[in-house]
Structures are given as structure tokens and as C-alpha cells.
């Protein structure tokens, strides 16, 4: 039996932490971080308890609870949760990985004077993310979807005084907003067709019954509109641009939001509402190809990147692409499996990168790092585990989940399989590049004067940062053996390992790593690829010109349209219409002024004219006389 109160506590604990910090502890660093950690740990513990309760029964329990949030005649919007195996697994990832990152942040943000604000934002983010996981209807989901976007904006732009960070935050929010435009339209459209005799509904459990009654072409439109939201939040092409810039945020943020959880929300949404996408083959194909292209593009771009966090960001994009592709191929289980293992090793990699950045005093360029494995053994070895897991090396967790996706593609669509396999090979190559450049070799043979200065100061990060690394490294190692797919989708038969695919992808991964060792195994000053790739390298440096295209649109199109409209207002509306009216009034006043000219004879004449008119009016029809009377008056006015 699942206790609903536990779910509610897990839901609201981080919000309570956020409110407490905001109201009372914005000045005290130590207490605020403890409160935030207590909040997320409470959620984690409750989630663990709920997990055991859910899997006590066979089949696993499903629990739903709703409170009425808005109720206006035909419209009901609930606030509640829908707890099932998929939700509890995602909840465990969010709160579990989240806890590790919160604890790590206590060390990482120790020196920042505004760290209480950081922990308040972080708790707000955790609350929003838990909201996405638990929501049982589309409006509630949308609410938390937006709140996740908001907290991401706040965290990316945490160092708001730095223009690049502030810009990155704005970019993230804007791109997400743009994609939510489609998402919200999709939600409303779905709601408007959801009446099959019991009134309209946003509730997932009701919509399951609705979908078969919806016209196929309409369902395709709905599915594609909902997918718009995924494109934004999970950073798929062409809205992937925000995720790379989001690396401006503090590193724990990159780990939590832009690797493990927020960007996974799109995948989770697809899996949770897969019943909407499943019947539409068109939508699924579109989704699969979007994912595959994203995976390949990001993997190519990662090869030419020199910032340690941005390389990891590209690898995140690439892996998200694979997950989206899996969903598009009709495999929510494979997609969610990879999401889970990816959350482990990507959080690990980011926190490892953070540990390096922390040790090097906010240096992020990989060419200014060398031989760190000896200086920072824990960081180095855990980073190695993360790298191998990401490359899909047996028996680490990434091997199993990536193999599941590749096998799915292999069985269904050769083109997609080839794209995905290429992306995987490239992943191994650029991750190998990252690892060899940063960690390999002898630390003392560095030529940089700048680094000579504190080469001897570099040492391992404090325990509050390394313990989360070890915890995540363990998860990344054993992730393939703890039956994650079974817990995610208990009703599905366990997947057999596809040996052919497994062998091919292992060979590809080892080849990628081997190539990278050949090129980067020895210490080099500059990237040898620059000369080898030639002008293509410039294309990569410009990230396939996506940013330039958007900048062109904003500066040239949007801004000009807005300027034209603004000119229309000042020149046409105001000058012609409004001022025109004013001139008319002034002219009228001028004309009437002649009536008051002070000439007594004139007054007498008007007076007599009036009497005559009145007299005529009394004996003849009004309209005729009135007209007759006005003509000379106007003539007179004109002449005068």
C-alpha cells in the first residue's frame, strides 16, 4: 500500500526549504545550504519508501490523488499526483542525483557570498522538477514545466553581473518559451477534443481513453505540438542553442539541470504520455529523425570544442538525441533506461569537471589543463569511469542502455542505426580527447607560465565534493545490473542483449578511444585537428551557424518589424489620425471664432437671420428651411 502523505512530503519538502531560505536565511551561508540539503534528502528518503511500497505488490501499485485547483462549470483543473513505476523511478533519479549535487554544491559554492540565493533557487528547481515528474494532468505539468524553465533561467544567470551569464539565462528562457508556445497550443487542442461523454479533461488517466476517439490527422498535429515542448526543454535541433550557453551557470547547476534532470524532462514527458504519440506513425518518425540528427550534429560539434563544460554539454545533447530517437522508434523503455544511466554518469562527469574547475580557480579551457590524474586521483578516476560509461564500454551502465537503443534502431531503421552508431563512435572519440588532454600525462611538463604559478597548488577537492563523485561513480558502474528496465516498465518482458549490435558498438567505441589516444595521448600545445579539418573546423567553431541565423532573425527581421510597427504608431496613428483630429478641432475653433468678431451689425444680422429662419420654420417644413438657412451661413463663414 502506498501512503499518499509520503508522496506529498516528497513533493513539497524542497519548496518548504526554498521558502524558509528566502524568508529567513538569505544572510547565512551555512544554514541555508543545510536547509536545502535537508529538503532534498527528505524527498529522497520519502521516494525510497514509496519505491519499496510500490513494488511490494505484483503488479506494482499505481496511485493517483487529486485536489481541485480550479473548477468553473465545464472546466476542471486538478492539482495532484499520479504515482506509478515510471514516476517513482524518475523521482528517485531527480531526488537521488539531486541530493548528491546539493551536497557537492555546499563545497563548490562555499566561497560565493550569495550562496543562500543559490540554494533557494536550487530548491525551487528541485520542487519544479518533482512537480513535472508527479503531475497527473497537462495543466499542472505545464505549470511545473514553466517553473523549471524559470528556475533554470535564474540559475544560469546566477552570476548576473557577468553579461555572458545573464545573456545565457535570457536565451534559455526565451527558447523554452518559444517551444512552450507550441506545447500550450497542443495542450489546449487536446483538451478541446477530449470530451467523450464525461466532459473535457486534462487528466492523463482520462486521456488514455480519449486518444482512440481522436481523428488520426488531429492526433498527429497534437503529438507534434506537444513535441514542440520537448524540442525546447530537451534541447533538440533546432532549439538546442540554449543548452550550450547554459554552461555559464555554476557547474553544479550544469550537472543537475542541464545534464541529469531538466533536459530529461522532455524524454520523461514523451514516455509518460506515450499513448498520445504511439498511434501516430508520422509523429513518431519525425521524433525519431529529430533525435538522430541532434545526436549526430552535437557529436560532431563536440569534437571542436575546447571548454570542458561545453564538451560535456554537447555530449548531453547527443545522448538526449539518442533518447528521443529511441522514443520515436517506439521504445519508451529503452529511452528511459538510457535517461537513468545517463543521469548517473553525466552528473558524475559534470561534477568531476566542476572539481577540476574548482581546483584550477575557474579555468575551463582544456588546453590549460594537463596531467590532472595524479594531482586529483579521486576526481580523475571517477571521471574515467564516467567517460567509459558514456562511451558505452562493457560492463559499465552506459553499455547496457546504449546497446538497448542501438539494438532498437538496428531492428527498425537502418538509416537511424547508422546515424546513431556514428554518433556513438564520435562520442568515444571526443570523450577520449577530453580525458587524455585534461588528465593524462605528467603534470609537471606544462609549459604555461600562468599555470606554473599554481601547478603545485592544485590538489584534490574536499570530501564534501568527492563523496558525491564516488557515490555517482558506483551508480554509473552498477547501473546495468540492478534491473532498471524492469522497474521502469514492469509489464514488459526483459530485453535480450543483442550480441551483434553489442559487439559492433563496442568495437566502434574502442576505435573512437583508440583514435583519440593516437592524437592526444602525447602532450600537444594546440589541437592537431585544427589543421587537419581545415575550413570545416571554422564551420564547427561557428556551431553550424545556428546562433548566427537566430541573431540575424532577431536583429534583422523581428527588430525591423517592431520598428515599422512603432513608426506606424507615431507617424500614421498619432500624426495623421490623432493630430489630424486635433487639427480639425482647431480649424473648427478658428472658424467659429469669426462668429465672435465684435461687430454689432454682424450680430444684428445673425439675429435677424435667426428670426427669419425661426419664422420660416414655423410655417414650413423644418428640414428644407434648415438646409436653406445653413448654406448662407457657411458661405459667409468661408468668406469671412
Amino acid at each position, binding site marked *: 500500500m502506498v501512503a499518499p502523505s509520503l508522496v506529498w512530503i516528497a513533493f513539497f519538502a524542497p519548496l518548504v526549504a526554498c521558502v524558509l531560505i528566502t524568508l529567513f536565511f538569505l544572510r547565512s551561508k551555512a544554514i541555508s545550504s543545510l536547509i536545502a540539503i535537508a529538503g532534498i534528502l527528505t524527498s529522497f528518503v520519502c521516494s525510497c519508501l514509496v519505491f519499496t511500497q510500490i513494488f511490494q505488490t505484483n503488479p506494482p501499485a499505481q496511485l493517483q490523488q487529486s485536489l481541485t*485547483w*480550479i473548477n468553473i462549470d465545464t472546466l476542471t483543473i486538478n492539482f495532484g499526483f499520479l504515482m506509478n513505476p515510471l514516476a517513482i523511478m524518475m523521482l528517485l533519479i531527480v531526488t537521488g542525483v539531486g541530493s548528491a549535487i546539493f551536497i557537492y554544491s555546499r563545497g563548490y559554492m562555499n566561497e560565493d557570498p550569495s550562496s543562500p540565493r543559490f540554494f533557494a533557487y536550487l530548491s525551487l528547481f528541485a520542487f519544479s522538477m518533482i512537480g513535472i515528474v508527479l503531475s497527473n494532468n497537462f495543466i499542472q505539468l505545464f505549470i511545473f514545466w514553466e517553473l523549471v524553465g524559470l528556475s533554470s533561467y535564474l540559475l544560469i544567470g546566477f552570476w548576473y*553581473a557577468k*553579461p555572458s551569464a*545573464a545573456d545565457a539565462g*535570457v536565451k534559455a528562457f526565451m527558447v523554452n518559451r518559444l517551444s512552450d508556445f507550441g506545447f500550450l*497550443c497542443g495542450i489546449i487542442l487536446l483538451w478541446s477534443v477530449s470530451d467523450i461523454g464525461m466532459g473535457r479533461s486534462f487528466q492523463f488517466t482520462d486521456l488514455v481513453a480519449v486518444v482512440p476517439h481522436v481523428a488520426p490527422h488531429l492526433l498527429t498535429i497534437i503529438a507534434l505540438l506537444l513535441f514542440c515542448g520537448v524540442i525546447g526543454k530537451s534541447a533538440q535541433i533546432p532549439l538546442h542553442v540554449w543548452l550550450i550557453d547554459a554552461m555559464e551557470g555554476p557547474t553544479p547547476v550544469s550537472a543537475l539541470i542541464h545534464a541529469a534532470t531538466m533536459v530529461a524532462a522532455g524524454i520523461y514527458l514523451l514516455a509518460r504520455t506515450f499513448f498520445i504519440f504511439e498511434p501516430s506513425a508520422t509523429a513518431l518518425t519525425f521524433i525519431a529523425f529529430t533525435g538522430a540528427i541532434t545526436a549526430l550534429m552535437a557529436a560532431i560539434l563536440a569534437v571542436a570544442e575546447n571548454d570542458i563544460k561545453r564538451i560535456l554539454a554537447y555530449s548531453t545533447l547527443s545522448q538526449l538525441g539518442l533518447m528521443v530517437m529511441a522514443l520515436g522508434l517506439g521504445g519508451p523503455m529503452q529511452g528511459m533506461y538510457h535517461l537513468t544511466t545517463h543521469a548517473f554518469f553525466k552528473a558524475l562527469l559534470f561534477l568531476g569537471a566542476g572539481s577540476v574547475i574548482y581546483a584550477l580557480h575557474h579555468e575551463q579551457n582544456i588546453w590549460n589543463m594537463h596531467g590532472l590524474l595524479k594531482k586529483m586521483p579521486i576526481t580523475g578516476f571517477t571521471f574515467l569511469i564516467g567517460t567509459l560509461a558514456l562511451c558505452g564500454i562493457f560492463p559499465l551502465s552506459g553499455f547496457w542502455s546504449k546497446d538497448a537503443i542501438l539494438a532498437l534502431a538496428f531492428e527498425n531503421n537502418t538509416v537511424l542505426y547508422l546515424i546513431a552508431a556514428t554518433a556513438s563512435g564520435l562520442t568515444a572519440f571526443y570523450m577520449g580527447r577530453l580525458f587524455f588532454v585534461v588528465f593524462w600525462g605528467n603534470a609537471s611538463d606544462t609549459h604555461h607560465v600562468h599555470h606554473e604559478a599554481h601547478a603545485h597548488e592544485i590538489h584534490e577537492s574536499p570530501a564534501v565534493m568527492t563523496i558525491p563523485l564516488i557515490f555517482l561513480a558506483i551508480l554509473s558502474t552498477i547501473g546495468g545490473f540492478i534491473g532498471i528496465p524492469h522497474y521502469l516498465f514492469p509489464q514488459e518482458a526483459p530485453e535480450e542483449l543483442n550480441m551483434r549490435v553489442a559487439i559492433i558498438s563496442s568495437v566502434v567505441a574502442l576505435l573512437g578511444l583508440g583514435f583519440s589516444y593516437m592524437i592526444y595521448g602525447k602532450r600537444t600545445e594546440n589541437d592537431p585537428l585544427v589543421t587537419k579539418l581545415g575550413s570545416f573546423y571554422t564551420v564547427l567553431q561557428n556551431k553550424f551557424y545556428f546562433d548566427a541565423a537566430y541573431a540575424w532573425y532577431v536583429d534583422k527581421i523581428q527588430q525591423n518589424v517592431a520598428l515599422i510597427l512603432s513608426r506606424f504608431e507615431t507617424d500614421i496613428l498619432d500624426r495623421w489620425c*490623432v493630430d489630424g483630429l486635433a487639427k480639425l478641432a482647431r480649424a473648427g475653433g478658428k472658424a467659429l471664432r469669426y462668429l465672435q468678431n465684435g461687430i454689432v451689425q454682424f450680430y444684428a444680422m445673425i439675429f435677424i437671420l435667426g428670426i427669419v429662419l425661426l419664422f420660416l420654420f414655423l410655417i414650413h417644413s423644418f428640414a428644407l428651411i434648415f438646409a436653406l438657412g445653413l448654406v448662407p451661413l457657411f458661405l459667409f463663414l468661408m468668406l469671412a
Partner: protein
Amino acid sequence: MFTPNLSLILLLPLLGLGFVCLVPADKTRLIRRIAGITVLLPFILSVWVFAAYDHVAGGFQFVQNTPWVVPFGISYHLGVDGINSLMLLLLGATSLAAVLISESIKERVKEYYILLLITIIGTYGAFLSLDIFFFYFFHEVAAVPVFLMIAIWGSERREFAAMKLTLFLVAGAAIALIGLIALYLSTGLQTFDLVTIQQQLAQHPLPIAVQNWIFPLIVLGFGITLTLWPFYTWAPVGYAEAPTAISMLHAGVLKKMAAYAIIRFAIQLMPQAAHAWMPLVAGLAIVNIVYCGLVALTQRDLKYILGYSSCSHMGYIMLGLACFNTIGLNGVVYLMFAHGIMAALSFALVGFVENQTKTRDLNELGGLLKCMPFIGTCFMMAAFASAGVPGFANFVAEILVLLGAWDQYRILTVFAVLGLVITAIYLLKAIRLGFQGPLNPKFAQLSDASTLTAKFPYVLLLALLILVGCLPTVILTHIGSSTKTIVESIK
């Protein structure tokens, strides 16, 4: 059992106004204190009225009805239903905040507070009156001091702004007046009493031909105040040049009075004409949303951005008015409240910034979060509220309007959703340029709102936005009890 006495809401501030008039002009502290109490008391009474209103019973409650000029059918008739009890709350909170932030006014303090209080009393009167004559009378009482206050306490282009605003609003009021008088004459009841007219017209509607020309007069007349496109050009410049308290009250409350009048006098009394005319208004509403939003993108003056933003948001109100269903109409009233509080809050904050930095130009500002974290954070929250981020009241209102409008105006609704994107663009840009980035060194010494009293007006408005945004039922039960009867009568 005590029940609130609605006349007190008018009499207490009138008494306060009398006191302010009697205090010598140089005793500014005393004047400020009296003015504060003068708006605090009706606010408390408004909260009481709101809490005591029985939404299950519905209808007009706490009614006071005294015939005044019997031959013309004018009576002093006060009463509240779910809609205007909420408007009282909006006005109460906004006026309290407006008076409190007026601390920064240093010239002609006594005259300032006298005029401000007259505006506030007039607005209370208009919302309380169930008599069309008194509504119009109070409406004008509220409008007149606005002109003077802009012209005297406004910023650089104050005379131009005051003139433009006044000409537009007077023209609007005159058109509306013609409509209202025509309505009075065509009912043949010889009464201005709204309740009587409602009952009569529900039984025997006016001939369609008559409705069809009275309705547009009233909607156009009040529509000018509601910044209906293309009659909105007075608002950005007017709000930009007005003293902060007037921007707050006008954008926050007086505009909503026009929407209120359209619901009460046009849509409810002439439903057939409403069905014929409102689709046109819905179309203009979308122009409002998209057009004014895009123009806001080109602005560099914080107050102009807020002014255009306010025009843009009125589009959602007008779109909701054209829905003729409970969802949409609930959304409209919700948005009147939410936008009122949000607009007042934003203008108050920008007023604070301007008062400190002596500029509103985004190119000169920058990094203000550093030197005024409280004000900056509040401004960000107000901007998020405005952009329809969940957790704030505006989100609920906008989602209701969108859901209500979807069945009738699909394509228009899609554009209305697009409006949310545009809003986010210009507001984030404003935050980015004004509050983020490196701090301009010449602003390093500026002070934040640090004392509790200085923070109170902002906290009050922000708390209302969040409360109503998280727990919509707090006000939806009130709104719903009244909109239900309206929608039933116009279906």
C-alpha cells in the same frame, strides 16, 4: 451579526480628505499620516466586504438604496456582487500602496494628497454604485484629478502627456455618456437604477436595431480607456509622464473600471448586440496583444515598456469579454484583478528606480540588482507575473481566457498564446538591461528599500499576486457566483 456598511467605504475617506484639507500645508508628515490612514480604513473595510460576501447566495449584497432625484429615477444605490467586491479589494490594495510610495513627493504635498484622495474616492464610488448616473458621476470625479496630477507632478513631457491623455479619455467618456443616456431613454423605465434595468431587459430585451447602435457607443467609449487598438496611443506616454501613484492607479484600477462598465452596462444589458459586435472587438484585441507587444520591443524607457505592456495585456481582457462563456468571463475578471495588482507593482518599482537613479533609460541603467537587491528581485517577480509564469495570478487568468476563447476564436487564440512569448521577450530584455550585467559605477551608492515600511507596499502587492496565483479558489468562488448569472443571461 455585523454586516459591512458600504457607505462607510465612501464616508471614511471623505472624512480623511476633509482632515487633509484642514491641516496646514507645511505639516507634511501629518498629511502623509492622515492620507495613509484614509486609504487604510476603506482597504480594511473592502477586505471585510470581500470576506463577508456570501458567494453561495450570490447576487447583490449589503445593498443600500435611497431615492435621490425621483423624477429622473436617480438613486443612491450601493451594493456588491462577486465582481465588484473583488474590484474593491484591488482598489484597496493598490490605493494603499500608491499612497505609501508617495513619500517621494516633496512639492505641494497637501494638494497632491487631496487630489490623489479624490481620485481614490471617486473610484470607490464608481465600483460601489449600482446606479448608472452615480457610476458615471464617480467615474468623472476619479478622472478629473488625474489631469491635474500629471500636469503638476509629472516628468518632462507632462503637459503634452496630460493633454493627450485627457483629450482621449474625455472623448471616450463623452461617447460612453451618449450611449448611457440613449440606454436610459430607450428602456422607457425613467430610471438609472442598474438592478431595475437588468431585470426589465432580461424580460424584454431592447429591439436589436436599438441595441446595435447603443452597444458600440458604450464599448467604444469605455474601450478608449481600455486602450482598445487603435485608441491606445495616450496610454504609454500618459503613464510614462504621470507621477508614479497615478500610473499605478490608472493602469491598475481605472482602466479596469472601463472593463467593468463594459461587462455591466454593455454585454449584460444588450446581449444580442454583444454577439454581433464582440467578434470585431476580439479581432482588435489580438492586434492589441501582438502589436503593442512588438512596439514594446523597440522601447528603451522602462515606463514606456510597461505602458505598452499594459496595452498589450488589455487584449486578453477584451478577448475574454468576447467569449460569452463562464471560463472566459471568469478569466477576464481574474485578469482585471491580477493585471491591476501587477501593473501597480511594476509602476511602483520603476518609480522607485527612477527616483533613485533619475533615469528610466535602459541604456543608462544596468546591474541594479547589485545595489538594490530587494527592488530588483521584486521587479523580476512582477515581470515574471506579467509574462504569465505560473505561481502568479496572471498565469491563471491568462490560461482561463485562452481556454475560454479557444472554441470560438481558434486562430486568434493561437496569436494570443504567441503574445505570451512576445511579453517574455521584452520583459526579459528589460531585466537584462536594467538589472543584470555590470553595475554602472555612478549607481553604486544608491540605496535599496531597506526598512519594513519602505518594503511594505511592494510586499503587499506581491503577496496578493502569489496568493491568488497559487490558490485561485480564493477569488474564483466570488467571481464565479456573479459571472454565472451574467453568462446565463447572455447565452
